[in-house]
């Protein structure tokens, strides 16, 4: 019985060996993979650094108070006025409107898909919701321009490019986000909970809405928060139907146009330079900070839902 040494067997040719010849392959591969994993960190770092480096001085020059609470956006005046409150308020109205239209429909749809849906409907509905998520925002925007704008003009008045129109359109666009995340939250609730309620004599509807849905609360909330994030960040579709006047609006003026933070950037960045450009980047910074806060909230809710 010969002793075979436990030394290293010298391997023959193979692609990954050839690729990493001369190195300790395992080690080299690990370094390669680890370096790649740093890409995401690097990207977030770069985005933060460059947005803040370019945006914060502008906010400093304008004065943070003047910038955030100024009601006049007059980039071409001398001296120019850079107040983004109208845009903050505009984003707020349109997002609130989108939530108003999108959330109830989304949640009822999610409940349907998780608890009411026959199998043969589900196999059609699920891809349909995925498709809804995949439609590009310019296509939504275009649909809004040619269908929703005339609809609102004819039935509600105004010229059609309005807060209401943008809210309706965004309400449609956040549907898949609300549906997908709420549905999986509802599905994650143990079947025993439902069974327990039904065993006590609750009807299917009652058990679903008063036992299962409340149990899935944090997941459903997470879906709403993510929907808010989508709505705040949406650019092209909103820009195409919202009218885009950089004017302070009151809530009852929902048939007039408004400009959001995102459309402010997309409309003017193309031709802006100097202080104007810096002010637009600063608008982006404000948007970015909003989104970070919303994402943090989403992360918290999701974590709570998982526990």
């Amino acid at each position, binding site marked *: 019985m010969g002793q075979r040494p436990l030394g290293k067997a010298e391997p023959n040719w193979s692609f*990954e060996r050839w690729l990493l010849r001369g190195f300790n*392959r*395992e080690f080299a*591969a*690990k370094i390669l*993979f*680890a370096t*790649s*994993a740093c*890409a*995401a960190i690097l*990207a*977030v770092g770069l*985005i933060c650094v*460059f*947005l803040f480096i370019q945006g914060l001085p502008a906010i400093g020059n304008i004065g943070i108070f003047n910038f955030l609470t100024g009601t006049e956006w007059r980039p071409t005046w001398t001296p120019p006025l850079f107040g983004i409150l109208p845009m903050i308020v505009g984003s707020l109205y349109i997002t609130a409107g989108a939530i108003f239209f999108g959330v109830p*429909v989304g949640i*009822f*749809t999610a*409940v*349907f*898909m998780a608890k*009411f849906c026959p199998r043969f409907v589900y196999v059609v*509905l699920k891809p349909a919701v*995925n*498709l*809804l998520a*995949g*439609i*590009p*925002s*310019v*296509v939504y*925007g*275009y*649909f809004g321009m040619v*269908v929703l704008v005339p609809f609102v003009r004819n039935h509600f008045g105004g010229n059609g490019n309005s807060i209401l129109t943008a809210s309706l359109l965004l309400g*449609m666009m956040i*549907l898949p986000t609300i*549906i997908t995340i709420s549905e999986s939250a509802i599905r994650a609730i143990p079947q025993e909970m439902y069974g327990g309620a039904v065993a006590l004599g609750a*009807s*299917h*509807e*009652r058990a*679903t*809405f008063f036992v299962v849905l409340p149990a899935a609360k944090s997941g459903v909330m997470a879906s709403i928060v993510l929907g808010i*994030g989508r709505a705040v*960040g949406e*650019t*092209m579709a909103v820009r195409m139907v919202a009218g885009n006047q950089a004017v302070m609006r009151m809530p009852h003026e929902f048939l007039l146009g408004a400009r959001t933070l995102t459309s402010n*950037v*997309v409309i003017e960045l*193309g031709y802006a330079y100097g202080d104007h450009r810096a002010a637009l*980047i600063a608008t982006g910074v404000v*948007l970015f900070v909003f*989104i970070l806060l*919303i*994402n943090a909230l*989403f*992360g918290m809710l999701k974590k709570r839902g998982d526990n």
Partner: protein
Amino acid sequence: MENLSLGLEAVEEIASLKISNRKIMGRKPMDFFLFAFTWLGIGITAAVLLFVVGYVLINGLPHIRPSLFAVQFTTENQSLFPALMGTLMILGLALVLAVPLGIFSAIFLVEYATRGSRFVKIVRLTTETLAGIPSIVYGLFGFIFFGVFLGWGLSLMSGAFTVSIMILPLIMRTTEESLKSVPDTYREGSFGLGAGRLRTVMRIVLPAATPGILAGIILTIGRIIGETAAIIFTLGNVARMPNHLFDTGRTLSAHMYALANEGTHPGEAHATAAVLLLVVILINALSSWIAKFVKS
């Protein structure tokens, strides 16, 4: 009054017990409302989808003519061909940049890193952050960093790099999911035969995860094709085909945006919307078709 309503409720209680749970009639009012609202919700969702897709296709398909695919874009003939080529170039470049990076990152997170280590947590956090950033912020960043700071201007390079950062989290997440769905017994089997980690990953885990990864990449393609806000400030929105890496151009969705804004060529706008939508439908179908392999 009080007694009467109680009595009614009792009657209904009995009725609902007798009649099958699935029937609409004989429900308590509350149940009926919930039931009705559920159907209303799903009805609205279905209507939104059918209306958007139906409207765009019905109005767009008749306008798709051969002249739309003419090589040259002119004011008279708003051909979408240059935009189509621009889309393909951005697509190719962005995938070349982001796919290996995303797959390697996911391999590191799933196959190499200690679960729950600080590094993994940071990578997770940054990936989620990237996934949440709206495309206009990517556009702004790409404009500042690639366009101005690196001096690439409005170009294929600026556009592709910006978009590749955007899609990185998507590729990472879908790849991670696919790798995790490969049973550990495969890994054990391979290690048990004396294969190293690299060989186990490359020869056993990755092939088994390929359908899932592919489905993810195809979804990503849909995302790139639909992207507009990040494109117009990095690639630009000029109606011609880019001639080299640092040349400007446009993509289909940017083309769509320009047509819609100008409003002078409604037929072409309808047609372009339809083409975009068709591509997305195709991509979604392809992706879920491939994803089926994962399950079987």
